[in-house]
């Protein structure tokens, strides 16, 4: 499965052939139509996803403001990473904003595999962390609200 290895694969060159086969055995392809809901905020997650094509929106529901998209997942990005971290529930609602294709990895099986095989974990976790870290950096920057207009006193 070239999605996992090689220069264009998600895990780079680090996976051994055996590990790659193990991951492939846990994976399946999925496609989503525009407006399909991929995950619900708070719902249990069964799969870790790697987006191949299209765009997914991560949304939070804010009472009074409706659904706010806080981030989009672009091809090559991971989604449903909460599926490998307890309590294995989605931290946002994920909606396909255009037709999308993804690779889904069975999360329970993946967790088991990672527990069984430290060498697999040693490859998968850093990659996942790198992805989560990038997202965390972005979230911090967004928190700064850099493009916000300065607010002055109304009359001065």
């Amino acid at each position, binding site marked *: 499965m070239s999605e996992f290895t090689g220069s264009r694969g998600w895990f780079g060159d680090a996976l051994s052939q055996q590990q790659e086969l193990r991951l492939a055995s846990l994976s399946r392809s999925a496609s989503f139509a525009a407006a399909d809901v991929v995950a619900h905020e708070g719902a249990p997650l069964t799969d870790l996803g790697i987006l191949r094509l299209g765009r997914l*929106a991560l*949304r939070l529901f804010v009472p009074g403001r409706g*659904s706010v998209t806080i981030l989009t997942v672009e091809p090559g990005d991971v989604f449903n990473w909460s599926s490998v971290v307890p309590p294995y529930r989605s931290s946002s609602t994920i909606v396909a904003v255009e037709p999308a294709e993804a690779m889904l990895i069975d999360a329970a099986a993946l967790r088991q595999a990672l527990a069984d095989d430290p060498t697999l974990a040693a490859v998968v976790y850093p990659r996942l962390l790198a992805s989560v870290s990038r997202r965390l950096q972005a979230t911090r*920057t967004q928190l700064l609200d850099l493009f916000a*207009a300065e607010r002055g006193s109304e009359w001065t």
Partner: protein
Amino acid sequence: MDVILGTPAYLPRTRLPYLFTALQAAGRRIIGPTISDGAIIYDEIRGVEDLPRGWADQQSAGHYRLVPGNADRYFGYVVGPTSFKRFTFPPTVPLWRARREGSEVTTEAIEPEAPALAFLGVRGCELAAIGVQDRVLRDGFVADPDYAARRAAIFIVAVQCTVSASTCFCTSMGTGPEVTTGYDIALTELNDGYLVEAGSEAGRRLMDTLPLTPAESVQQDEAKESVAAVRRTIGDPVAVEGLPARLLARLDDAGWAAVAERCLGCTNCTLVCPTCFCTSVGQVSDLDGTDSIAERTWDSCFSPTFARVAGGDFRPRLQDRYRQWLTHKFSTWVDQFGSFGCVGCGRCVTWCPVGIDVREELARIAPVETVAPVVAGETIQRPVAVPAAPPAPIALPVVGSTVSADFSRATVTRIKPETVDTYTLHLTDLDPRLLATQPGQFVMVEQPAFPPVPISVSRIGPSGIELTVRAAGPATKAITMLAPGDQVSLRGPLGRGWPLAELDGRDVILVAGGLGLAPLRPLVEAVLARLVPSQKVRLYLGARTPADRLFVADAAAWARTAGVDFEETVDRAGSDWTGRVGIVTHLFDEAEWDGRDAIAFVCGPERMMQAVAATLTRRGVTPEHTWLTMERHMECGIGLCGHCQLGRVFVCRDGPVFSVAELGDAFGQEGL
């Protein structure tokens, strides 16, 4: 006697009144030393009876007292709290008058006053200070007309130092105690009279009218020796060798916070300094705001508002302000004006209410033996690679028809809302120089009763320019409330724009965040106009929300242009937005392209530009080819007010466009 330039003559003390008469006969008011409020100050004096005869000044850090001195001497003191800049660069000066009648606006410069003055008692350090201000205010990038006029009307009677104070360090700064140049007449006070020398033709002519006798060699020897003795007494208290670089290497020193513990932030050091030239402009207007006079007053980098902009403060801490002052005087001034900003007169030492001594602070923060020690784990990580050595001085922008310090009028012909608070004004009837605006340059927009506002030019057309303005405060709001037909006053074009010459067929990366697209739009248009088939243009835009995107139609057209890769993102969106949501660096941090031969242009909030620059570096774009526009508090727009200083540069004068390499350490440095 016949006076010959460079040959000293002698004036007995009893004949000193003749000097006053001669100066007054030449139509000059005399400004010289006199006692007031317990100190020797400079003020108008009418005769020798106003001089501080018999008084000396006892000075140390934070301490000044008048004490009886040599009873006969008129000049037996060192220097007091006043400096002669009070008369060449007065505390308050009216600059221009602005009026609005209906939609018409006029802005007229107020003619400088330039009284014929004679400065009496100018010391070596003070002559040097006048020279420093000449370079800043008269011979620099744009001359200040008021200073130039006043300065031209001054006759200088220097007086050699025959006494010194514990606060003196002219010897280190190379400014004294000897008076060597820049005077019309120089006196040396001797036991019974004065050795008098002419330093200019005007001085020689004045000496011709004085009852002088030839100076005897013993008198000349006495004069030389008394000044030489002062030099020996002062010694060499400040190690200036390599000082600029030493200081710049210590921007992160803990000593800044330590001195801020004692510093009152009171502004005294800067305002007694004979070279400090920072000012602010205030508007004095009638109740209708239709008639106003802009007045310039002395300000200080220690003022709480000095580095403030609508969104915050670039130097919020006292330690930022102290560092700004000290590094400017002893380091970055050299980059900007070719000399130290300090002449070693010691005023800032004496007149600091808590006695902070710059000589001690320099020795403590930037000691000579310093080779910036690198301790593992203690280096500060910056987003951009910092050059080990300070970068080379920055080339000033090309001065000429592209920069105009004069106000001119323009008419608003269209106003287009871009977002809920941002509008684009289309201006016509322009001064032709404005039509020659380069992409990245800006203008100061001035309306009666409001402070002038720097606005970058967001389009340069054949018959007009466009300004895109966000109503962030009252002054910008007033601009957005103008109507078609209204006039505005503009000073510009100003600053250095994007380096179009550097394009050179390279791939171009343009990254804009928020309002940052405004100064980039003329560049995008220029780049696309000269696009060659081998060239790629990658355009990355970020905005807060979909509703905050600027120039949406233009962007759509750019996206359709062959050779252009266009990506945009927003920080957050509603569920109807199908585009990207996230930060602008994510548009290209995992892209495939190689930036090694590319040139990048970035504009947005500074924190965003830091992130973009770091990402571009990782993608191979060199600091020399990463260009940004910086924001600082701009008040004059022509490098004369000091507000927008950023380390070695003034943003208005040297920028606002800089390469990351040019900025070096200054980019991303807290409190600079």
